[in-house]
């Protein structure tokens, strides 16, 4: 267990390092001078040089990358003209465009994605496992087919179309909900939930399809196994066999996939955030990429990578916890 976690930690460090290097390289190779952008129009040559020096872009690539890494673990001071801002570790850099430390920018936006991911996951698991079970109880019958059709249709709808439909339906035609406007949970939990309901639904309705199929297939496969026959031979009621034992067989896969999907949403749901105007990481990523705000983009990439590595590790741990045959 400890060894597994240590191994994972080392692996994660390697992955993140490679990711950082790749992002740096990509932006270095991209046309456009961040210093020019930061300095603005009518920037004189000495000013530009000064900005370059402040940004560190006058250094060779390797040097820049090294500075980035040392900044991450030890912190760094950033000069903002008259004064110097100290950015403490873990420091992902400083955005001169928004005059803010990147770490703080990410921390400000992360709660949005955490709210989005956890709420959506709860809904999609409920929906997916529920419909999967419903379909598996009478495979091949009409209700199996109808569930399949409905779920597949929902699953093949792009999330921004789903978002649009929900917004139109709930806020324009039925007018049962106001247009979403993110409220932190710390301010007002009821408002938080109400405003996130539509984004949650949009992600959940689209994502549930995979879980329906996983659950249905897992349950049907387990029902064909020998140990289910043993339960029948001992007089277990069929409902109990399906709801407790067959679901148990499907669970490890469902949970593993869910952990990874949650990681993906945490790392930024660009479409959903954009459609519902949520101030999350995805939106920030798109904005900073279009303004070539290199430190922010790099920070988001690393955070997303870290979140996905963590999600994978959690998935493995959950799998081991759910299946006594798996040892890590």
């Amino acid at each position: 267990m400890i060894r597994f976690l240590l191994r994972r930690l080392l692996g994660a460090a390697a992955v993140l390092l490679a990711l950082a290097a790749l992002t740096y390289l990509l932006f270095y190779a991209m046309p456009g001078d961040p210093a020019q952008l930061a300095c603005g129009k009518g920037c004189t040559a000495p000013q530009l040089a000064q900005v370059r020096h402040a940004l560190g872009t006058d250094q060779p690539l390797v040097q820049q990358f090294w500075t980035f890494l040392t900044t991450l673990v030890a912190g760094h001071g950033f000069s903002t003209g008259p004064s110097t801002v100290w950015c403490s570790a873990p420091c992902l850099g400083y955005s001169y465009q928004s005059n803010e430390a990147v770490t703080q920018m990410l921390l400000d936006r992360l709660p949005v994605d955490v709210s989005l991911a956890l709420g959506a996951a709860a809904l999609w698991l409920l929906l997916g496992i529920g419909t999967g079970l419903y379909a598996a109880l009478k495979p091949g019958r009409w209700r199996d087919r109808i569930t399949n059709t409905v779920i597949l249709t929902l699953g093949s709808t792009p999330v921004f179309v789903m978002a649009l439909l929900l917004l139109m339906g709930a806020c324009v035609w039925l007018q049962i909900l106001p247009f979403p406007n993110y409220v932190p949970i710390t301010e007002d939990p009821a408002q938080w939930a109400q405003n996130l309901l539509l984004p949650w639904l949009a992600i959940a309705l689209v994502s549930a399809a995979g879980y329906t199929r996983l659950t249905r297939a897992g349950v049907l496969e387990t029902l064909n196994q020998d140990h289910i026959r043993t339960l029948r031979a001992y007089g277990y009621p069929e409902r109990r066999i399906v709801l407790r034992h067959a679901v148990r067989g499907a669970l490890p896969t469902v949970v593993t996939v869910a952990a990874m999907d949650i990681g993906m949403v945490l790392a930024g749901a660009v479409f959903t955030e954009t459609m519902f105007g949520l101030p999350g990481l995805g939106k920030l990523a798109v904005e900073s990429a279009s303004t070539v705000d290199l430190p922010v983009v790099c920070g988001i990439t690393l955070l997303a990578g870290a979140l996905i590595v963590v999600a994978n590790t959690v998935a493995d741990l959950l799998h081991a916890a759910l299946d006594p045959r798996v040892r890590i």
Partner: protein
Amino acid sequence: MTHPVLQVEDLRVIHPGPVTALDGLSFELAAGQVLGLVGESGSGKSAAALALLGLHRGTRTQVEGGVLLHRDDRPVLDLNRASDAELRTVRGRELAMVFQEPLTSLDPYRRIGTQIATAYRLHTGASRADARLRTAEVLDRVGIDPKRARDYPHQFSGGMRQRVLIAMALALRPRVLVADEPTTALDVTVQAQILRLLDELREETGMALVLVSHDVGVVGGLADEVVVLRQGRAVERGATARLLGRPEHPYTRALLQAVPRLDAPLPERDAPRADDVLVETEGLGVDFGSVRALRGVDLTVRRGETLGVVGESGSGKSTLGRTLVRLQDPTGGSVRFEGQDLASWRGRELRRRRHELQMVFQDPTSSLNPRRLIGDSVAEPLRVHGGRDEAKLRAEAVGLLERVGLDAAHADRYPHQLSGGQRQRAAIARALILRPKLVVCDEPVSALDVTTQAQVVSLLRELREEFELTLVFIAHDLAVVRSVSDRVAVMREGEVVETLSAAELTSPRHEYTRALLDAVPRLDAVGVN
């Protein structure tokens, strides 16, 4: 006859197709009595066993006739006409079942104690504490330390898992226990223990036992009465001693003859020359982490001989076999093939000579690719070794299929369209197509029923003459090994405890070999000559 507890009347089981799996089986079973149901695969014996507990319900299989449960000499319930709820109350409580596959018949996600206790509480409404007590009691009775109730099924061996299933049945004190091939997946010593346990429990609790098996030897030792099934029909029935001693139906006779016997005369055969050694191992060791599968095995295989390898599961037989054909690299010692260390074969040399070493596996269902035609699977080794002319490849594959008793039509079928015996024949053809010098057969017949087993064994005997093969024949069945081998190596815990000639096998020097022999179910003990 005493009061019956179970009465079966004209039981028919019809699979969709329609295929009549069981065509009119009737019997009565009294408390404490043992009925043996014997037949080859496809004889309908398992279909019958499942029907006794109404386990065909909810499938597309139709069951006709009556399965009457008696109490106080009166039929109280016809399982075939009972409602689902009625059926559930008697399943486990009155009739319990033990299955052929102990490895998969327990829920892998739940502790064994929980599984036993849950089944117990389901029928008795006992408290958790009482159920735990009862679980400890029955685990202890079947020879499992009650402390292990908190372990999961995968932490037990096959034999132990079968004990767990028996304990589960025992907990509810059923009046009838249906055991469907309870020992087929287990090796001889474990088989003997399980059979003894079943017999003791029957004696103690007075439960009646329906024992289903393809092995007359297994049934013969326990059953009071035997019914021989063939293609769904009971061709002969009678008291065990009479039926096995003086079988009337030719099919019963054939079945008895097919049972490999330790006292059968050995076929005459020129012993291979002792100085012509094909394979020699020296201090051969294989470690898997901390598990020592082989510990210093010294063995010679002479050119043209058949060397049998016997031992319980876990004794290292399969690892030895795999190492001999270089599917497994030794972690110590060496294998010398025609004087050359196998480890020295590398790259091109290995590719060029690999075909001289072939293997036939236990389970032809999983060793043949289910998505490829038999003909393609058999020709595949030629293709791997550079065969390009498809017409020639096919001709050669068909030729070999014919040689192993199949025909050209089989080449165009998929593995699932063949019977177990036919699949093993195809697997043998695939092993032979490259004209190997050494063929290792790892339990080649243990997944087959006795009649098919006898056919495959005699096929191997013919082929080894024709192809001048040297065979290493690995099996847990001593009688089968004795019937094909020139010499037999006996393995225990990764070591060869002794090597003796086939003739010497029945009078071994080593006590372990003696114990293995004693565990073999004996037909002569029940009056069969």
